[in-house]
């Protein structure tokens, strides 16, 4: 399966202790060879295929969260989006909840870039039309009042 690591994941993974990084690499390798060999959890209620794999270092549990999608050839692939301990997770989720509650995020969450670009194009087109209407009016006014340019 093709996989990728999101930049946030890379940043988080790099900040983990070396022993944890090394165990994470080992767990990832095992998962790639045989996903069922690694303790995992498919997150229920997600509108996408989001799941976590777990590993332990000195009795502390760590998880990595991945999201599966399909490429243009309909082949499954996985993007790793988060990694950390349970304590890290307990800090991460409330911070994300707060971020997602902000008005800017609410706005952008519901807007698709294509829709936004289309609306901008429409607005530009309408401004162009208004301008040309304005020019036409000026010409007509000149004709009407027989105003000659100086």
């Amino acid at each position, binding site marked *: 399966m093709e996989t990728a690591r999101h930049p946030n994941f890379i940043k988080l993974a790099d900040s983990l202790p070396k022993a944890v*990084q090394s165990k994470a690499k080992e767990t990832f390798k095992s998962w790639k060879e045989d996903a069922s060999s690694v303790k995992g*959890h498919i*997150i229920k209620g*997600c509108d996408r295929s989001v799941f976590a794999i777990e590993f332990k270092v000195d*009795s502390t*549990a760590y998880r990595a969260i991945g999201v599966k999608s399909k490429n243009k050839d309909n082949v499954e692939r996985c993007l*790793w989006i988060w990694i950390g301990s349970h304590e890290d997770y307990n800090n991460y989720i409330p911070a994300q909840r707060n971020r997602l509650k902000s008005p800017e995020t609410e706005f952008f*969450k519901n807007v698709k870039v294509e829709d936004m670009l289309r609306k901008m194009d429409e607005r530009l087109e309408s401004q162009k039309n208004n301008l040309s209407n304005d020019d036409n009016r000026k010409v007509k006014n000149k004709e009407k009042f027989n105003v000659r340019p100086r």
Partner: protein
Amino acid sequence: MTTSNVKANTESKEWNAQMDKDADVLSVIAKEALESEGIVYSDDDEW
């Protein structure tokens, strides 16, 4: 099963339940991540 194994299993189940409860946030985070630019998938990707 040893006491520490039982404890670990309980903690793991609790974390699972917590993640299921956070499905709304995780869905949005996943959507944002998938829409990020410059993500390159590979067969050779390594952690």
